[in-house]
């Protein structure tokens, strides 16, 4: 209202693009004038890094005599380690017949014959792929991590569900935990818990706990307040109401929490190999460091299979009607499966017999080699065009601009898009990054992320719009997206590495495949969520399909699209950092390097922190956007 009256009374009206254009010109001018000044070039020996490295040395020297370690942290490590050994011992003792039988039986009970057979096939697949040992190790690690996540997450979640105050305290912490790229956890963990399976389990737990808490809280908060009140009115104590009303009513939603926790754990457990946690991660990392897709692929497939089996099992449990009695035949079959498995333990060898494995390493490597040779021109072309046309110019822009100019630009952008609060948070993050001494690398990572996000959004919008408009296309695409979202992030490095070698573009390619599915989904749902009456009205008014899309559907799906952008950015960042393993350089590489060179520990640690700050900044800049319905509204208030 203010804008129209003001411009009407002054009788002069700036065109809408004038202010942004003016700002852009201002920034370009400032860049041209100040370029090359106040840059913050990277220094491997920055005092901040050295301080952290020294701290690590100190901790290493006092790990066994400092009381905090001796009586606290080491006990945690020890307890988790003992739990892991327990899981491992049980799984090893079961051997493949036992594990197959028991998993099959559990799955059969959870979801009937389909799930049961799926589990049998899935577990056998570990053996057939020749990865029995690693798979069992991974299973043990996931088991420990999920158990711990639930043991901690469910009580906290219940508490948060019961008390709005707790919920308000916990939510921002969980928010940050969820945008924290997985890599960032590892260095501090190694610092406190050393390396190995216990540290890996703890890292995985930290990554997997947010959904456990969040979904449990949601489930408990959703419980019908009348039912709770009725229970209280009859004189039930809090505990009675909790156990007789809240928990039973929240049960099926809480099963989803378990499901999500398992999925998160599976995607983290691979990365935990960087701090020497055992399992399939080892095979994937070995494949990466040998650039052999043939080694990585089976391990990737095994992880996906494990994810699918556990996903179906827990989902089936969640969807199960709690009142339906398990059918007697199902019980019988499950019992028979478990009994057969257990009975066969002494008879059959504990590890999968080697002659029933298929060796895919050589054929896959050959196929990849073929693809490399034949597509070399194309893939190199794509890579070089993107690198020279987008990556390098943007990177040199960001690294040669004065840091204050970049900070100012971020401030103004965040302010415009998400308001004052977000702008200040973004600024604070950038300043902290500058102080940490990783400015240049952050700008490089930001470049890679920006390019990847652009590509992700373009592809995501195209596919999402296509799916929203063509139901048949959507029907084909959905299951693919489902599968893509079940896969641990790491797996996406495979095809990227095969096609593009170790470069920044590889990370971009991997993050695009990683982030596109949720973006497509959000866009599709957003467009489909436009009320049919509105669409009808527009069609009745004679809109062409194109007009309908541009003038009605896309603007009305704005919220969903912005949310998609936000999601895309967070996911891309996580992946770009992992890309440090395959040549993406910058922060991701610093983190990797921090794990592998003791002298670089400080740099890696700081880079991890900077990654988190970068994530918070990008999240805040874009997050406000989806809370606002239209840019006008804010002007009025």
């Amino acid at each position, binding site marked *: 209202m203010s804008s129209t009256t003001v411009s009407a009374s002054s009788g002069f009206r700036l065109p809408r693009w004038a202010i942004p254009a003016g700002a852009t010109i201002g920034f370009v001018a400032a860049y041209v004038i100040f370029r090359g000044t106040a840059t913050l070039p990277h220094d491997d020996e920055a005092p901040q890094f050295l301080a952290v490295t020294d701290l690590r040395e100190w901790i290493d020297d006092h790990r066994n005599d400092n009381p905090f370690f001796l009586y606290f942290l080491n006990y945690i490590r020890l307890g988790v380690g003992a739990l892991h050994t327990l899981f491992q011992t049980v799984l090893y003792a079961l051997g493949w017949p036992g594990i197959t039988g028991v998993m099959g039986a559990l799955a059969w009970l959870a979801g009937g014959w389909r799930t049961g057979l799926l589990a049998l096939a899935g577990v056998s697949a570990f053996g057939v792929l020749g990865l029995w040992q690693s798979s069992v190790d991974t299973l043990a690690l996931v088991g420990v991590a999920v158990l711990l996540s639930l043991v901690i997450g469910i009580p906290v979640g219940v508490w948060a569900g019961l008390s709005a105050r707790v919920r308000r305290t916990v939510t921002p912490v969980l928010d940050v935990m969820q945008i924290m790229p997985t890599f960032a956890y590892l260095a501090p963990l190694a610092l406190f818990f050393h390396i190995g399976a216990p540290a890996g389990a703890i890292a995985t737990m930290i990554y997997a706990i947010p959904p456990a808490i969040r979904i449990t809280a949601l489930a408990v908060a959703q419980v019908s307040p009348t039912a*709770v009140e009725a*229970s*209280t*009115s*009859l*004189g039930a*104590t809090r505990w009675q109401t909790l156990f*007789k009303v809240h928990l039973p009513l929240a049960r099926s939603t809480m099963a989803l929490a378990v499901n999500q926790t398992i999925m998160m754990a599976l995607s983290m457990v691979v990365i935990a190999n960087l701090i020497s946690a055992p399992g399939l991660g080892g095979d994937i990392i070995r494949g990466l460091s040998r650039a052999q897709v043939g080694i990585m692929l089976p391990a990737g497939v095994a992880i996906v299979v494990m994810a699918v089996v556990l996903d179906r099992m827990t989902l089936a449990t969640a969807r199960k009607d709690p009142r339906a009695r398990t059918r007697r035949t199902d019980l019988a079959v499950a019992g028979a499966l478990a009994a057969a498995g257990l009975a066969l333990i002494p008879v059959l060898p504990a590890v999968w017999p080697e002659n029933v494995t298929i060796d895919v390493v050589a054929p896959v490597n050959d196929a990849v080699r073929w693809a490399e040779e034949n597509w070399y021109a194309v893939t190199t072309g794509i890579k070089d065009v993107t690198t020279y046309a987008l990556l390098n110019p943007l990177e040199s822009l960001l690294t040669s601009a004065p840091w204050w100019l970049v900070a100012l630009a971020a401030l103004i952008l965040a302010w415009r898009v998400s308001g004052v609060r977000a702008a200040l948070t973004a600024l604070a993050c950038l300043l902290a990054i500058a102080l940490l001494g990783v400015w240049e690398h952050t700008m490089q990572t930001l470049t890679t992320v920006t390019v990847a996000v652009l590509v992700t959004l373009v592809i995501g919008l195209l596919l999402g719009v296509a799916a929203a408009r063509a139901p048949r296309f959507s029907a084909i695409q959905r299951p693919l997206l489902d599968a893509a979202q079940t896969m641990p992030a790491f797996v996406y490095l495979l095809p990227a590495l095969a096609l593009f070698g170790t470069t920044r573009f590889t990370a971009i390619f991997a993050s695009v495949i990683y982030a596109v599915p949720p973006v497509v989904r959000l866009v599709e749902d957003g467009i489909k969520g436009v009320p049919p009456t509105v669409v009808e009205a527009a069609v009745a008014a004679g809109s062409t399909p194109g007009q309908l899309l541009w003038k009605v559907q896309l603007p009305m799906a704005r919220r969903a699209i912005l949310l998609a952008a936000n999601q895309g950015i967070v996911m891309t960042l996580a992946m770009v950092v992992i890309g440090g393993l395959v040549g993406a350089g910058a922060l991701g590489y610093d983190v990797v390097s921090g794990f592998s060179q003791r002298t670089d520990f400080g740099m890696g640690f700081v880079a991890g922190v900077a990654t988190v700050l970068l994530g918070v900044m990008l999240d805040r800049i874009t997050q406000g956007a989806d809370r606002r319905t239209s840019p006008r509204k804010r002007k009025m208030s």
Partner: protein
Amino acid sequence: MGDSPDSAAITVEGLWKIFGSGAQKVLAGDDRNLDPVALREKTGCTAAVRDVSFEVRPGEVFVVMGLSGSGKSTLVRCLTRLIEPSAGEVRIDGEDVRAASPARLREIRRHQVSMVFQHFGLLPHRKVIDNVAYGLEIQGVPRQERHARAAEILSLVGLDGYAGSFPDQLSGGMQQRVGLARALAVDPQVMLFDEPFSALDPLIRRDMQAEVIRLHREVGKTMVFITHDLSEALKLGERIAIMRAGAIVQLGTAEELVGAPADDYVADFVRDVPRSHVLTLRWICRAPEPGDPLDGPELPAATPVKDAVAVASASSLPIKVVADGELAGVVDRDDLLAFLAGQDPHSVRANA
């Protein structure tokens, strides 16, 4: 317990409930006298119950009525501190509820007062019988015993044969019967109903009202019944309290409310009530004038006006209205016609 000075089942005095932080400050100052809208604008607090006092006699059905948002639910929840009152006194069977310890409060809720809710509040994961037995279960009554009791109550509310069903397999009316049974199962002295039938369709609602009347006759509980439906209030209530913006504006029998509304709000409320059904002859009779023949038919003062019409049409003589064996007044045909036509001689007189 029984040594209370009054013999009321429930006594409420000067009860306040103010939602929002700073409630105590509002109560301490002059802001308490502001009307709710002004109060909310000034302090952000909502005064849901404002200085309410009343008594409920043992065995009585006490109805609280008012428009949506007038504070009825809040009031009834304050009685057992499901919502903590901000100020005032609540006594149940003479015992000061506000002073009760958490454990004592639970005892009161377990044994003395139970409640029926508008949206039933049944536990979907439990069978009907276990829903009904829930109150006994949390008291620690052994399974067999509580199931026996629950089955008894189920047949009392007419749900024989549904013990093994789940709530969502029942119709709305049946679900509320389960809610009723659950409240009855603990054998309380007082039952609170918060608009128990407003989610039901009219026919079922009528059945359920009849059910409550029947139960009241059979088990003789004290009942506090919240409703925003006037005809329901008139049908069930011995006495009715009308609430507006958190305060009680009038408390009395149906006849008093219809016959002498305290203000326009109440008058508005009762406007559409068929007055001849509610008001009795006591309300319209007049002192016999000289020349009125006093040998006409005789009717008790508590006869509803509508029932007098047939008598009046049979006899042209004025009807003698008798209360406690004495003549209270007379009503003739003209009086009746004038009343039915809407010119209420009494209220005209009262207003003058």
